[in-house]
């Protein structure tokens, strides 16, 4: 009887203990994943970027160059995804799942900085802003505080096929420091002589317009970054006219996406690529065309004050205001912010051209590029970089561009330029109010 009692107690004990154990297990699980935004200094620093061959490779290189021990996790996300995730995350106010370091395109930067002023960590103290090209500083700073560390320059050049141009009777000199009008003229000639298109354009992407207007120091908005500046914008009007002239000259190969754009010149279908310097690796990827390419300065608008230098794309690193920000800022400051030797490697290994002025004297910058017929491409780009007019990209570059793209189609169909710009202005003002 005694034992029966014992067994009963034992069984009870067993179930109680089991329950406790299970409860303990489940509570473990519950507490395991709570990972707040304001927690302790994390061990791991995360960075978001989008191009494995370019900016991600650059981060990897920086990680290797960084002398201190840092657990840096680089996560690849499509640029659109980064924009979307940042918008979602920052607007919700929850910094959960946000990276420490994020790469943002310069033309989008202001919209983030102004919309979420507290979400970013000023990193002006971690490097000297004087070392960087002035045109990079305006879009990466706000209210006098430096938030972005310039990564690559978007300095533009006119990549051209020497063989096609030669066939049409043009030399490099004929392409140097020309206006867009001259460019169109040459294009017509090339089309006529070689049957090749002069340029490949995506009708949905007016990047070429931005290149044109920045060369004249203008933008879609005024210097305050907010006031829409379309109507009576002489450079923009000129750019529109040039664009239409190109289309009408029928030497434009339309593309609908990046891969088709790349394919257009890799396949030898187009004679020139006016683009940011970052296109160079893609051109060089087609080895059969080695020695057939050179780079001339970008054409300018036929306007007073316009220069043969402009910018397309280009991005900068930002540090989010979450735990680990100091570590992240130190990392950026010590690599992209001040390491000359690292910039030499960056140019050589990744082909990324930074805007860090002291690096321009380095050996790698002076190197001649065999693919481009021995042209010291990097040095040329560095030179042009210094000439890029600084503009305030403001908040609404892409929103305005969507409106302009639609109006551009109307313009191509014959709508009057003044009406086109006036309508675009009206639309933009009402949309961005």
């Amino acid at each position, binding site marked *: 009887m005694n034992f029966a009692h014992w067994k009963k107690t034992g069984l009870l004990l067993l179930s109680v*203990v089991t329950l406790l154990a299970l409860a303990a297990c489940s509570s473990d699980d519950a507490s395991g994943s709570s990972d707040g935004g304001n927690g302790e200094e994390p061990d791991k620093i995360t960075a978001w970027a989008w191009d494995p061959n370019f900016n991600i490779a650059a981060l990897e290189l920086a990680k290797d160059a960084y002398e201190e021990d840092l657990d840096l996790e680089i996560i690849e996300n499509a640029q659109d995804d980064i924009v979307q995730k940042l918008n979602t995350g920052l607007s919700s106010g929850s910094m959960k799942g946000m990276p420490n370091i994020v790469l943002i395109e310069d033309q989008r930067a202001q919209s983030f900085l102004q919309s979420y002023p507290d979400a970013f960590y000023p990193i002006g103290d971690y490097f000297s802003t004087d070392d960087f090209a002035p045109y990079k500083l305006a879009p990466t700073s706000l209210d006098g505080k430096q938030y972005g560390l310039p990564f690559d320059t978007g300095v533009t050049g006119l990549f051209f096929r020497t063989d096609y141009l030669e066939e049409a009777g043009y030399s490099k000199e004929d392409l140097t420091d020309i206006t867009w009008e001259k460019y169109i003229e040459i294009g017509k000639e090339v089309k006529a002589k070689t049957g090749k298109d002069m340029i490949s354009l995506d009708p949905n992407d007016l990047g070429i317009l931005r290149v044109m207007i920045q060369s004249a120091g203008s933008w879609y908005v005024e210097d305050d970054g907010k006031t829409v500046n379309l109507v009576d914008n002489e450079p923009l009007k000129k750019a529109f006219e040039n664009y239409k002239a190109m289309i009408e000259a029928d030497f434009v*190969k*339309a593309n609908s996406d990046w891969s*088709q754009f790349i394919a257009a010149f890799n396949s030898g279908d187009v004679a020139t690529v006016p683009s940011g310097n970052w296109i160079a690796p893609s051109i060089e990827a087609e080895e059969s065309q080695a020695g057939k390419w050179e780079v001339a300065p970008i054409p300018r608008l036929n306007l007073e004050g316009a220069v043969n230098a402009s910018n397309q794309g280009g991005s900068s690193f930002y540090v989010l205001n979450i735990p680990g920000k100091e570590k992240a800022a130190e990392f950026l400051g010590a690599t992209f912010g001040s390491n000359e030797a690292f910039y030499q490697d960056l140019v050589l290994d990744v082909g990324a051209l930074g805007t860090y002025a002291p690096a321009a004297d380095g050996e790698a910058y002076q190197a001649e590029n065999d693919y481009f017929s021995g042209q010291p491409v990097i040095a040329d780009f560095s030179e042009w970089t210094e000439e890029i007019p600084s503009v305030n990209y403001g908040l609404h570059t892409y929103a305005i561009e969507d409106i302009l793209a*639609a109006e551009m*189609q109307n313009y191509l169909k014959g709508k009057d330029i003044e009406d086109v710009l006036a309508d675009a202005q009206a639309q933009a003002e009402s949309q961005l109010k």
Partner: protein
Amino acid sequence: MKNLMNTIRTNSLFVKMFLVMVISIIAVTVLITFSTIRMSNNLFMETFSITNTKVLNQIKQQFESFSYSVAFTTINVQDNGTIKRLLTKENVSSLEASNSFYTIKEQMDRIFSNNPNDANMIVLGKNKQLFNMKYINWSVSADALFDHPITKKTNDHPDEILYQFVAEGEFTNGRRMIVATKALTESSTDNVYGYLYIPIREKDLREFYEGYTSEGNSVLVMNGDGQIISSNQQGLIGKTDQELLAVAKETDENGLEYQDVHVFGKDYMLLTSSLPALDMYVVNLVDKELVINNLVDRKEIVLISIAIVLLAVGIVFIISRRMTNSLQRLVKQISDMAKYDFNKPVDESGGYEAKKLAHAFNYMLNELQDHVRNLLKAQRKQRKSELEALQHQINPHFLYNTLTSVKFLVKENKKEEALETIDALIPLLQNALGNVDETITVEQEVTNIKNYVLINQTRYGEQIKVNTLIAPDCLHFHLPKLVIQPFIENAFFHAFTEKKQGYIQVLIARREEQLVCEVVDTGDGMRIDQIPSRKGKRQLFSGIGVRNVHERIQLLFGKEYGVEVTSQLNKGTKVKIVLPLLEEDAKENTISNNNTKPRVSGEENF
């Protein structure tokens, strides 16, 4: 070995009891443990299958909503006149191209905005015009796509939306894709003018269900050919398993909640849900063992059971040890008793049962002892009366001889002497007729001896002289009647058959705590073994003979007292009588049993 066997034998009760207990405890615990584990497993599996069925339904809804989007998009693209027009155009000018590219993107944007999940949308014309909504997801070229088997298959089934798996490779930039394809046909002629692709990266498709998976709880998506096109178990993607497909089909068709299957070298619980619109099966494989091990900590249950068993066994050990120990001690005491001491009561200790047992045993022992004592008492009583009877038998010869002597004395006119003899006879008779165990003082005894000697000398002359030598401090001590007289008589009549004269010495002295009386004669002496044979002649004063004296003394006082005879031929015989020192009348000083302890008790007297 022998010791061990011995120990086991002596402890056999304990061993048996303990073994039975231990075996039953272990058996019960093991059974309970197993049934607990089994019950929890079953309960768990039951719950798991219910939850997972719900989960599967949710996954299914995700897929269905996806397939609905795909179907919706397909219809929109198919019905879109602009897209159709642009896909069928050839050799356009820059202006036309610019316009059409812009328009088609615009149209696709509108259609695509309804398409959730990270799916892409690609439209490919027969004219090899390709429009890709998210080239970053899949930057495929028109030629590569046009010549790919998925396009061919789509061309073969122009009316169906096909969901095709594309393994990782250069074609897909190293990503696995599931591509929904549909040929775009002119409704009037059924001519195919282009293709619509809605590719979704396997990684993105996985997000439909990945949140529901965990270690041991995996989800596979199989297409109708048995190929695994998506899974949280990366290693399985791309493999084809007809067997699994068959089981999934069977489970689905028979409406089974779940089935146990053996696939990929393991036992799984399989739940499934079919996606007829996509010609796919969502299969949920639950690694029972792993999942149960994660949730039901068998090791812990077993450890607890072991702890309980050890605890119970320990308690059983202590309790049964206590019970059997007291019994065993009792048994040992009882068996020792037979060997050594029958009087010692057993120790009444240990458990209740052992106490009761020992008590009963002791009670029985006491009763037994009482009985034995009574028996002895009765025996002694009987002996005493025998002796008394003997004592009272005054030998008629003695009286006859004495009286004859007196007659002659009177005849010879020896009046004085005759009177002396009669005077000696009277106290002698008086003394002999009393109680056997009555005592008299040494002084009286000496007087008696003297009287007896006087009578004998009157009758037989004075060749045998009797001397008495009494220590003066002994005169007041008591001694039983007729203790010394038989030896003097014996010496008178038997010691001097050869020698006709001699001495008989009577010595009484105190030696330590004993009264020692010696009757020493200078007669013929004898061999010790001849003593009993002399008994035959009954020329005794009373019925009490030499032999009785010893017996009587021991009966009265105990074994250390008695008579000791030593003799040497021709030298004489020495009789030594050892008695206790009795101060008072002997009534108080006799002993009642054969123990050495003198016992003072009035009831012994009679």
